[in-house]
């Protein structure tokens, strides 16, 4: 008999498997992508329509695996360096004029960025890099080595910062810019496709467990019908559906009001929560109007 080593990769699978949480429904393929990223300690890149829960994923993974979460939200002006550290030369200069003692140690003026914070964490953290496509086109390239080796060099203090534990990095993108190949090769990739009606029912159930079955199915029918309207600029997505259901509950709308078989009530109540663009609202109203006209003939 061979002794089973405790580091046997097969045995520690149970605690790295992500199976969704009480507030997040994960499909099989999403679970697999996250598990692979957790096991291999590689970044995972998540894309999908706005409102399908990309950012939420990182929060839920951190919650499910009970790890600390660091969030780095990217803006168009964000530089890769800001995620590592920033050297506040102006503050140091000012201090030197005022004769402050802090000035002798350059480390006092190094401000840690989110990546450094995550690298310094005592247990394996989850690091969310949100909407990476908002930044400049070279931004991902500037982070290649940091994400690969999980270390970087601080020139001012001549110090090598290496991750204590390789963080699980979740990167989201809205496809506003294409990402460079070299960057993509280092990541696992998952595209959150728009949920089908069954999955959507599960998602709503997770958020509103006491929802009446009839209201749910009527709401979903109306929702998918709106999504199928051709020519909408922004199709309503999961987060809009959840907002809408919240409104329906708050207003205590009966399920019958959502049934669109009857042409006269074809406009679902409170549809402003679903359509966020005045052109879409016009288009929708016009279609319903045409539809009604046809109904009276």
């Amino acid at each position, binding site marked *: 008999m061979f002794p089973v080593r405790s580091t046997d*990769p*097969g045995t520690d*699978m149970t605690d790295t498997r992500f199976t969704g949480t009480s507030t997040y429904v994960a499909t*099989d*393929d999403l679970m*697999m*992508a996250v*598990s*692979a*990223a957790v*096991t*291999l300690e*590689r970044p*995972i*890149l998540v*894309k999908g329509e706005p409102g399908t829960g990309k950012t939420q994923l990182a929060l839920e993974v951190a919650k499910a695996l009970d790890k600390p979460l660091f969030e780095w939200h990217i803006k168009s*002006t964000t530089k890769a360096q800001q995620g590592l550290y920033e050297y506040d*030369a*102006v503050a140091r*200069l*000012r201090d030197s*004029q005022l004769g402050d003692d802090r000035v002798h140690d350059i480390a006092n003026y190094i401000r840690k960025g989110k990546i450094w914070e995550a690298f310094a964490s005592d247990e394996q953290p989850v690091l969310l890099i949100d909407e990476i496509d908002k930044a400049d*086109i070279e931004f991902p390239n500037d982070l290649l080595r940091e994400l690969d080796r999980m270390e970087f060099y601080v020139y001012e203090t001549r110090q090598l910062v290496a991750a204590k534990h390789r963080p699980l990095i979740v990167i989201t993108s809205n496809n*506003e*810019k*294409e990402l*460079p*190949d070299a960057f*993509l*090769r*280092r*990541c*696992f*990739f*998952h*595209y959150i*496709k728009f949920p*089908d*009606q*069954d999955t959507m029912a599960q998602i709503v159930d997770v958020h509103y467990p006491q929802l009446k079955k009839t209201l749910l199915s009527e709401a979903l029918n109306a929702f*998918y019908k709106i999504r199928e309207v051709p020519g909408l600029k922004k199709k309503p997505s999961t987060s809009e559906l959840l907002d809408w259901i919240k409104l329906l509950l708050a207003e205590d709308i009966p399920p019958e009001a959502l049934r669109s078989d009857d042409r006269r009530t074809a406009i679902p109540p409170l549809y402003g929560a679903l359509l966020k663009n005045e052109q879409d609202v016009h288009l929708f109203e016009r279609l319903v109007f045409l539809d009604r006209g046809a109904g009276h003939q």
Partner: protein
Amino acid sequence: MLIPFFFMLRDGGMNTSITELLTLLEAMKRGVAGTSVDDFYYLSRAALVKDESQLDRFDRVFAAYFRGVEGSLGDLFQEVPDDWLRGQAELLLPEEERARIESLGSFDELMKALRERLEEQDDRHEGGSKWIGTAGTSPFGAFGYNPEGVRIGQHGSRHRSAVKVWDRREYRNLDDSVELGTRNIKVALRRLRKFAREGAADQLDLEDTIDKTARNAGLLDIRMVPERHNAVKVLLCLDIGGSMDDHVRICEELFSAASSEFKHLEYFYFHNFIYESLWKDNRRRHAERVSTLDITHKYGSDYKLVFVGDATMSPYEIVYAGGSVEHWNEEPGAVWIKRLLNTYHKSIWLNPEPRERWDFTPSIKLTREIMDDRMFPLTISGLDEGIKALH
């Protein structure tokens, strides 16, 4: 065992790299996927596919490889023609049933019936016979219902377990196979950047600080300047409709790249040629038009003017009053474009038609003359040349 699969993916037009294959192998070694094929499919997809437009390709190669069908990859990447689908409907449905369905008058009904038929057929295949290319039916047998089936499939999720996930090909409409990514265009457009400092002063101006500090007898006097921003202003005029329909894709790409690259971007549409008015919303092109003169008054001469159009039309549309195909124009298009060119000295025309064909079309020749030969093909290298001409 995965090496042939890897090469098949590459043959299938995916740019999967060795690193990614090694990642996949490592993940399998670490036991991420377990033993089921579904798990393996999800894992290999997460490791090897890096863009949603490639998902459909991946699904097709995966299906082909794991059904043991190799060597027919060339056929796999053809589009499934609608005609074939209709043909298949005729093959599978008996005469009287088809007549009955057609009398219902609904194509959806027809498709539903077809789908059910095909599903039955799928079961038979699972019984053992070959999946693709038996007995003279089309090699797309299992793919056949997909173009419509994707949508219909939403109503029939009880069949989920019957149809393998990769066979459902849910990502079909995301495959765009564009040669020219927006990234390339953006990189090309960056050359047009012109940096200027405006806005809030939030950066240290080192030289000025040293200068002022020295003047201040060594007492620190910090000077700040605004960050440099791309201040180039672009006026984009796009030809839309008619012969431009063939070039919609590349124009969309150029437009999306330009709109995220330039802060000061104004765009207008025209049809075939410039006349007295342009429009911004193509759906309301007849209701909401902007006078061309207003444009020249509103946007200063520091804007750079870029036309995008194939300039392929009857020469009358350029040189004669009343030549426009859409309306009666009091003055010829050539006059209007010259008014624009007089205001905007930096201007180019980007033409999606290949350069070789320009000499065969009189209207392109005419337009080139009007533009003083500043016409460039709408390709990356053409864009580069054009941007040089704009400087």
